[in-house]
């Protein structure tokens, strides 16, 4: 086989590898991506996290227990629950939460800040 033919065959071989790799990535990322079915709350999308925090705020209004709220918020991954609430407030304001819901979130944030200032957990 002449060097030219050998080079040509090598070129097409290499090209087919790239083509196959592209097809594999497309299949693995788009057609049949890895499915996560056992996720944790900290992986929730920001709007779901905001609603999660709102639920915690609603429960706080009944229980008045910042430690409980702190434990519930800890599932969202941030070691500082106040930051979690503040992020939720930002998201909630972007999503147009009602004023009452915003106030609930704000009260939870204040309560947690006070609680931490007084010694926290």
């Amino acid at each position: 086989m002449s060097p030219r033919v050998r080079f040509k065959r090598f070129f097409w071989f290499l090209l087919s590898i790239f083509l196959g790799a592209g097809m594999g990535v497309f299949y693995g990322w788009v057609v049949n991506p890895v499915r996560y079915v056992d996720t944790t709350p900290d992986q929730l999308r920001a709007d779901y996290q905001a609603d999660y925090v709102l639920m915690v705020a609603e429960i706080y209004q009944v229980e008045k227990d910042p430690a409980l709220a702190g434990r519930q918020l800890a599932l969202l991954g941030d070691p500082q629950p106040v930051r979690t609430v503040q992020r939720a407030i930002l998201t909630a304001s972007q999503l147009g939460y009602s004023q009452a819901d915003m106030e609930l979130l704000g009260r939870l944030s204040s309560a947690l800040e006070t609680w931490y200032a007084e010694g926290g957990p």
Partner: protein
Amino acid sequence: MDERRGPWYLLTGLLMGLALGLLYAWFLDPVQYANTSPDALRPEFKDQYRILIAQAYPYSGDLGRARGRLALLKDDRPSFELGAQAQRILAAGGSVDTARALARLSSDLNLPEGSLPPQTSAGTPAANDPALPPTATLSPDEQIQTPTPAPSPTRPQPPTFTPRPSPTRQPTQDAPFRLDDQQVVCDPQRPARLLAVETLDGGGNPLAGVRIQITWEGGENAFFTGLYPEISPGYADFVMQPDVTYTLRAGEGGELVEGLSATPCKDAEGKAYLGGWKLVFVLP
């Protein structure tokens, strides 16, 4: 000889590439779901999510909001899941309050639309119900960072109206439930030795979340109405052991019913079996 090999080397290259591509896409750099939805949560976190929904529900009394939140979990039968979880908690000796909250929401989900008391909205209604995709206005660091499935086009739940302290019915645990009816149940179609309890309010409506205390020599147990909403929101049951006599009370301050035990019955063919009781308690 080389010339006769034909184009098979191309297929070999393609397969090699495909394998490399899949290796990369599935193992080396798989799709990262940094923005998942509640239905993808691990089962124990789904349980935690249901508890949050149930505990938040009494604050707003907003069944629509609770329904919307439960829908995010994509349970086939949300009411059943809530009841089953309440039973699991009780069976594991967990928090009675948590089980009660789950049972109550489970029960309310089965109520017909409009049967709950109207909400007393002290605040302003939600100004708008944003129809924009929820991630449309998020800051860049909150956006999807890697390829993900198409996000839900709507918010998890619409902010319906301002939640305010619960105006919904709250079964009073120390209410003096009175025994209204007591019947032997001999029905071979029903589970043997079944002690069925139903609690009703003053208007005859089923009352969920009432604690039923049952004691016997050397033991006691508690269960709640509302865990079988498909039967009745006020229904609860307990399977008695043969040759054991039970004493039962509905609520903390209810009438005590003594001497309950599995009752001898006969089926249509004259064969003996142990039947049960049906007790109906009402609030005076």
